[in-house]
């Protein structure tokens, strides 16, 4: 157990738990904040764990997450805000 692994444990324990709490409550756009922060945290945790395990090839995981996490968040924002057809309590659904 070196300092890097310890940092990884702290990040995934103390950091991820609040994100999970936020992402499990409230309206979708509020949950998105939790998911987004979790993406950053997990990416950093991947980097730290790669250093801790002494396997530099594990950094690819952080690279992929760094590329995909913004894409995933943009997917959500696209469908939450950019959909004029979204019915329900928010806004007035416009007929096509």
């Amino acid at each position, binding site marked *: 157990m070196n300092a890097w692994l310890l940092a990884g444990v702290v990040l995934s324990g103390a950091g991820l738990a609040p994100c999970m709490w936020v992402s499990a409550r409230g309206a979708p756009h509020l949950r998105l904040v939790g998911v987004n922060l979790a993406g950053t945290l997990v990416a950093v945790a991947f980097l730290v764990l790669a250093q801790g395990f002494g396997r530099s090839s594990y950094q690819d995981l952080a690279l992929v997450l760094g590329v995909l996490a913004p*894409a995933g968040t943009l997917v959500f924002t696209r469908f939450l805000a950019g959909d004029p057809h979204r019915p329900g309590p928010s806004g007035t659904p416009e007929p096509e």
Partner: protein
Amino acid sequence: MWLFAAAAVVIAVAFTAACTGLPDFGTDVHPYGDRAVAAAIRQHTANTVSSVNFDLRAFDTLGEESVLFGAVLGATLLLRLARDEHRDRPEPERVLPATRLFGATLLPVTLLTGGYLVAHGQLSPGGGFQGGVVLATGLHLAYVAADYLVLRQVRPLAVLDATDAVAAGAFTALGLAGLLVSTAFLANFLPLGTFNQLSSGGLVPVVNAAVGIEVASGVIVLLAQFLDQAVEISDAPSARTVFDPQEDE
């Protein structure tokens, strides 16, 4: 019903018997792991998982790839344009300029990352499937960061359709080549190269590339069907219909 019960009993007994013969969980003895690592090193493939997937048990991977191909085929068939549906012209959507710029810069970076994952499948974690999914996601940044019209410009769907099939066939062709040149279906007949170099592993990178292209184009074609349904196709020429239009999906 009785047949099922009998079969279930037989399988349960056999499964229990097989499980009792397994080595204990969490011990230091790994019979399969040791052999797989030894075989991977013999084949000059640094990433043992890739060696297992694309060399030692490539036939399994061929089956998995066919499953994905079949899924894409089925989705295309089910989600095609029905008789009472028609295409709408998609409208351009408002996005933040920063998002658009970010999408434009991230698109090549993502494609590069996907290519890197596919190409280094025999060296580092990753490989055809993962790299292919990243490639497909990268292309759809054009949709989430800009809009559907931009995506349609960067996505040659007919070409990708064909690429999907060709790459799926290429896997089998490589296997048959192994049968011709060497001894067995999917035998690793290429020179193995130097350990831990980009050109090592013999057939593994080639099969990897085939799988990567197949997965990328497969996922893109699959998402294209869903996007068509969600954005372009609407149910009737009139504005709204009274009957439930979900029945024919």
